[in-house]
C-alpha cells in the first residue's frame, strides 16, 4: 500500500504524482493558481494542495484511484458560485474543476432529455434547447455562471421551481465516480430505474458521496405564454398576507418572489428594474402555461394583491418589460454591493403561513446585532434569503458577529417548523447547525449513506455533517451523548 501524504509535504509530492498520472496540462499547483480556488460564493476560504482539471470520466477515475491510494481528499468544483462553502477544500486535498467537461453530449428532443457534462453552465442548456421548444426548469439566479453539476450537487432551486420542481425532479440519469475510482452509471433516459433510487440520494449530496461526471436531465416544453405582475405593498406584512392568499386561492403561479425596501433600493440603483422606491415590499408573481385562462389568473392575482393592500400594480406588457422586472430580482444579490462591501446570505425555509412572524424575528436579530439585513426571497415556497450586510475589512470579529446573527435566523426558522437550508446546501457553512434540525438518530441514518458510497471519507470531507474540530458545541459525538 502506498504511504499517505503527510500534511505540509502534500504539495510537492502530490504535484509530481498528479502530473505523472494526468499530464502537465491537467494540474495546477503554483501558489498564484491555487489562490483562485480558495473561495466560492460564500464567506469561508481554504487553499487546495492542487487543482486538477480533468478532460473526461477516465481522468476523473484515474485521479480518484490515485487519491484513494494516497489518502488525499477530493473536492469537486463547478463554477464556484455555491453559497455554503461546498467547493472549499477545508481539509486540503485536490480540487477537481469541471471547467473542461462542459459540453452538451446529446440533446434528445424526442425523449425530452439532454445528456450533459457536469461543467455545463446552466443557462447554456436552456439556450440550446429553446429552438426545440424546450427548456431546463431549474433556474437559479446564478444561472449565467453556475454549472449543472453544481445544481445537481446542491439540488438547486430558482424563482421558477415553485410550480415545476427543483433539480431533483428533473434528473433521470447520472454517471458518478466514487472515491475509489469506480465508475457507476445510474438510470438513463427512462422515467425511473430499478432498485433503490440512488439518483435521488445523490442529488443534493454536495460532493460528499462522489464526483458526478455525466448527467441526464429532463427537458420541459416552454410555456406557451406568461403573465408577470409586480405589486408594491406599504409593508412586508401585507405582502406576506398577499402571498398566503394567492397560495390558498388554488392558483399555482410559476413564481412568487418578495423583496423588502432595503433590497429594492439597492436593486433600483444597480439595475433600474422600475420598482417603486417608497414601497415596503415588492412582490413579483408570474403565471405561465396555456394561453387560455392566463389573463384570468393574472386578474385574480391582481385582485388578491389589491385586497391585501397593494398600492400599485404593474403588469409586464412585453417580453422586454418582463425581462426588466426579472433582472431586478436576478441581480438582487449582486446589487448588495451598493449597500455594503460584503453580504452573508441565509437560506432558511419556513411554512409559508409563518412568513410575517419570522420576518419580524429576523428584523429583531438585525437590531440586536446592529447589522442591516435585506430580504429577497422565494416567498411562494417559504424559502427566505436574509442578506446580512457587513464590512469584512473591519476584521474577523465582524464576520463572527455576522455568523452569530445568521445562526439566530436559522433558529427562528427551525422554531417555526422549517429547515436551515432550502437550496444553498449545508456545506461547511451550516454543518455545525445541522444537529439543530436533525437528532443523533436521524444523522446516524444519513451517515449509513455516506459510508456506503465513500467508506474512506475522501469525498469533500468536513461538509454537511458536524466535525469535532470545527463544531465544538455540536459535534456528532456530543450530540449523541445528549
Amino acid at each position, binding site marked *: 500500500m502506498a504511504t499517505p501524504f503527510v500534511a505540509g509535504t502534500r504539495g510537492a509530492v502530490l504535484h509530481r504524482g498528479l502530473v505523472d498520472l494526468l499530464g502537465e496540462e491537467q494540474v495546477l499547483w503554483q501558489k498564484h493558481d491555487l489562490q483562485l480556488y480558495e473561495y466560492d460564493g460564500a464567506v469561508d476560504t481554504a487553499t487546495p494542495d492542487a487543482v486538477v482539471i480533468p478532460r473526461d470520466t477516465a481522468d476523473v477515475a484515474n485521479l480518484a484511484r490515485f487519491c484513494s491510494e494516497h489518502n488525499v481528499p477530493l473536492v469537486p468544483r463547478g463554477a464556484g458560485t455555491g453559497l455554503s462553502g461546498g467547493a472549499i477544500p477545508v481539509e486540503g486535498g485536490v480540487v477537481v474543476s469541471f471547467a473542461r467537461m462542459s459540453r452538451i453530449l446529446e440533446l434528445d428532443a424526442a425523449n425530452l432529455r439532454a445528456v450533459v457534462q457536469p461543467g455545463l453552465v446552466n443557462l447554456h442548456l436552456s439556450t440550446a434547447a429553446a429552438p426545440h421548444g424546450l427548456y431546463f426548469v431549474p433556474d437559479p439566479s446564478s444561472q449565467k455562471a453556475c454549472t449543472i453539476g453544481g445544481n445537481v450537487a446542491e439540488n438547486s432551486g430558482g424563482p421558477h421551481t415553485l410550480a415545476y420542481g427543483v433539480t431533483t425532479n428533473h434528473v433521470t440519469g447520472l454517471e458518478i465516480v466514487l472515491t475509489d475510482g469506480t465508475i457507476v452509471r445510474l438510470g438513463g433516459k427512462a422515467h425511473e430505474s430499478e432498485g433503490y433510487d440512488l439518483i435521488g440520494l445523490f442529488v443534493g449530496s454536495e460532493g460528499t458521496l462522489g464526483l458526478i461526471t455525466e448527467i441526464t436531465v429532463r427537458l420541459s416544453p416552454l410555456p406557451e405564454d406568461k403573465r408577470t405582475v409586480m405589486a408594491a405593498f406599504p409593508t412586508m406584512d401585507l405582502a406576506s398576507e398577499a402571498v398566503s392568499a394567492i397560495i390558498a*386561492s388554488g392558483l399555482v403561479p410559476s413564481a412568487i418572489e418578495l423583496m423588502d425596501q432595503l433590497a429594492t433600493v439597492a436593486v433600483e440603483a444597480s439595475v433600474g428594474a422600475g420598482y417603486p422606491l417608497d414601497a415596503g415590499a415588492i412582490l413579483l408573481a408570474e403565471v405561465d402555461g396555456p394561453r387560455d385562462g392566463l389573463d384570468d389568473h393574472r386578474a385574480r392575482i391582481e385582485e388578491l394583491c389589491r385586497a391585501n393592500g397593494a398600492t400599485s400594480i404593474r403588469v409586464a406588457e412585453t417580453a422586454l418589460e418582463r425581462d426588466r422586472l426579472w433582472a431586478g430580482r436576478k441581480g438582487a444579490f449582486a446589487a448588495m454591493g451598493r449597500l455594503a462591501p460584503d453580504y452573508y446570505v441565509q437560506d432558511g425555509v419556513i411554512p409559508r403561513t409563518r412568513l410575517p412572524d419570522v420576518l419580524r424575528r429576523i428584523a429583531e436579530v438585525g437590531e440586536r446585532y446592529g447589522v442591516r439585513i435585506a430580504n429577497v426571497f422565494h416567498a411562494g415556497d417559504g424559502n427566505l434569503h436574509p442578506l446580512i450586510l457587513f464590512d469584512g475589512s473591519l476584521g474577523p470579529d465582524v464576520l463572527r458577529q455576522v455568523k452569530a446573527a445568521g445562526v439566530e435566523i436559522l433558529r427562528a426558522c427551525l422554531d417555526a417548523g422549517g429547515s436551515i437550508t432550502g437550496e444553498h446546501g449545508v456545506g461547511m457553512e451550516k454543518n455545525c447547525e445541522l444537529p439543530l434540525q436533525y437528532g443523533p438518530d436521524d444523522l446516524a441514518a444519513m451517515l449509513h449513506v455516506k459510508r456506503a458510497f465513500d467508506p474512506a471519507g475522501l469525498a469533500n470531507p468536513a461538509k454537511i455533517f458536524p466535525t469535532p474540530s470545527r463544531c465544538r458545541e455540536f459535534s456528532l459525538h456530543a450530540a449523541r451523548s445528549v
Partner: protein
Amino acid sequence: MQLDPSDARECAAALRSAAEARQTVRVRGGGTKADPDEALPGDAVLRTRGLSGVVDHVPADLTVTVRAGTLLRDVQAALAERGQFLPLDPPHGGATIGGVIAANSNGFGTLRYGAVRDLLIGTTTALTDGTLARAGGRVVKNVAGYDLNKLLVGSLGTLGVIVEATFKVLPLPATRGASVSSATDATSAFARAGAIVRTSLRPTALVVDHERGAWRLVVAAAGEQAVVDRTLREAGGDHVADPDRLLVPLRDLLAAAAEGAVVRATIPLAAQPPFAGGVSRLDGFERLVADAGTGIVHVHLRGDDATIAASTVAAIASARVLGGSARTERVAPSLRRHLAALRTEPPGHFLMRRLKDAFDPRGILEPERSLA
C-alpha cells in the same frame, strides 16, 4: 407471529427485538400490493394499521402529515373536507400511505403532478436498531442533509418501516374532464400523445390503450375550465365528463388481472411505439396500457406457462434494448421461480447492497426480496 404496534416507538422497539432474535419480518400495510412475497412459516408479520390517522393538515401551507398505516382513501377524504387532495391515484384505494411509498405506487397523474418521490417531503422511519430516523420535514423545500425520503420510495420495506410521512397537497381542481378516441396503430396513437406532451397543457392522464387490435388514446384534464376545454379539444374524440369512468378500469384492470403475467416496463418516451408495436405481436399478448407521458407501459400476457414465460422474457429484453428496464409485476405462482432467474442486478447494485446491510445488518426485513 403477528406484530401490531400502536405507535412509532412501539414499532421501532418491535423491530429491535426482532433483530436481536434474528426474527424475519414482513411488513403489511393494506395488503393490496400486487404479487406480495408470501410470508414464510417462520416470519413475523408486522401490520401498520395501528399507526393511522392524519397528524396535521395545514391547508394554507398545502402540506399534510399522516401516520403511515392510514388508508390513502381516508387521507383523501380528510383533505377533501378542506377542498384539497393528495395528487396520487395509484391502483387499490385500499392501500396505506406507507405501502404507497414503499411500493412507489403511482397512477396516471405523474405527468402533471409528479410521482411519489416528487410529492413526499418528510418521513419518519423505524429502523432495526430500534431508532426512529426522520428525513426531510414539513416544508416544501429542504436540502439539509441527505434526502433519505428518496431512498425509502420503492424500497419495499427492506430498509425500515415508515411510520409517518408528510406530502405536498393541492387544491381540488375546479373542473375535470376526459376524452377517448381511437387510433389506427401504435405510431399514430403515440404521435398524438407526444404532440400533447410537447404543449404546456399538462393533462392529468395521457394513456395509450391497446386491446384486440384496437388502439385508443385516453386524455384527462383538470383545472380551469378554459384549459380543460382546450386540452380535450386538442385531444379530439368523444368527451366523458367523469375521467374516473375511463381511468379507473384502465388502472385497476392490470392490477386485478388474475391470470397470466403483467410486465411493467419503463422506457424512454420515443421508444414507446416500437416497444408497443413489438409486444403486441407476442404470443399470449392480451392488453397494453401505456402512460404515454412517462413511458411506463404495462403489458398483460395470457396463455400456458411456456407461452407466458417466453413472451415475458421477450418483453423485458425489448425494454432493455430500447434503453429502459422492465420487471414482472404480477405473475402466476407456477412461473415465479422461472422468471426470478431472469432478474439482473441493476447498475449500482453493490451500493444498494451496502445500504441494505447498513440499515438492516441482520437481514431481517423482507428477506429474499430482490433489490431490483
